[in-house]
């Protein structure tokens, strides 16, 4: 029951945001912000439970995200592909996305990035381990693509240890 609980609750959240905000871009921003607020806290739980050590490079980070984190929290293991030559960008391919079970995007929400919460979660979590990243969806099964693809780009190492704020 619990994965359906998450999916249904997430759906209710997106529905409410669509009621409260007039355009899809604002909803996308809210989802990203909420994801960020989740990510900055989730990372502590993750580090405590997973026992993974510090990642030495972005490749290790990718492996940990796909094989440990996604598995732990969403029960799926995305595959990692499309590394940039510089090793600073990669894609996560989700064959199935638990957030979108039974979800269909209505016609008037073509710009909505339904699962945008995930981007914020990843961004917030990595910021807490001193990595600034850019995360975005490049393919989405809800929009008719065959798979869901999340692109992650390493921006820079964060030197200051500022406490996590709320966005």
């Amino acid at each position, binding site marked *: 029951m619990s994965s359906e609980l998450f999916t249904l609750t997430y759906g209710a959240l997106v529905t409410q945001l669509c009621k409260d905000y007039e355009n899809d871009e604002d909803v996308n921003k809210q989802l990203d912000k909420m994801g960020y607020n*989740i990510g900055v806290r989730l990372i502590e739980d993750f580090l405590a439970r997973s026992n993974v050590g510090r990642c030495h490079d972005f490749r290790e980070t990718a492996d940990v995200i796909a094989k440990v984190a996604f598995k732990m929290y969403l029960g799926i293991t995305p595959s990692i592909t499309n590394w940039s030559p510089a090793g600073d960008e990669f894609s996560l391919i989700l064959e199935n996305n638990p957030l979108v079970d039974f979800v269909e995007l209505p016609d008037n929400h073509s710009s909505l990035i339904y699962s945008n919460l995930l981007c914020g979660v990843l961004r917030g979590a990595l910021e807490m381990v001193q990595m600034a990243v850019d995360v975005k969806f490049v393919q989405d099964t809800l929009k008719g693509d065959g798979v869901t693809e999340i692109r992650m780009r390493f921006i820079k190492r964060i030197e200051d240890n500022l406490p996590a704020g709320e966005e």
Partner: protein
Amino acid sequence: MPAMADETLFQLLHTQVVAAAYGAGRGSGDEGLRAGLTVLEGMGFRVGQGLAERLPQGALAFREELDTIKFLCRDLWGAVFGKQTDNLRTNHQGTYILQDNNFPFLTQMAWGQQYLEEAPKFLAFTCGLLRGTLSSLGIESSVTASVTSLPA
């Protein structure tokens, strides 16, 4: 096989759900508080209905009302919080009291007296969830929650 969604993640999502209910200018004063609670209860209700609808047919064929309530205490609580309720009382006339001594949506926060007024915000969704689940089982109910003492 359905994917598992983790309790910690769900609790963090719930916190954002509460924030969303008080966003978009709904938040201030008594009226704002009530409006947000209504939003949260409504969301919980729809989620509870959805959950019950997705259970296999036989799973909810309870012969007695008490068995339905026990389902909520064990299975629903288990799915949402990873544990069962601590106590169940009834007057055998249709009123049931489910007691949780460590309600996860409240234990996360740092509580002091001034946060007492915040507690209802973290109970509303769950009340709706129970009401929605019961509704799918053909039971009309009123679900309220109270906090008798906050975690230290």
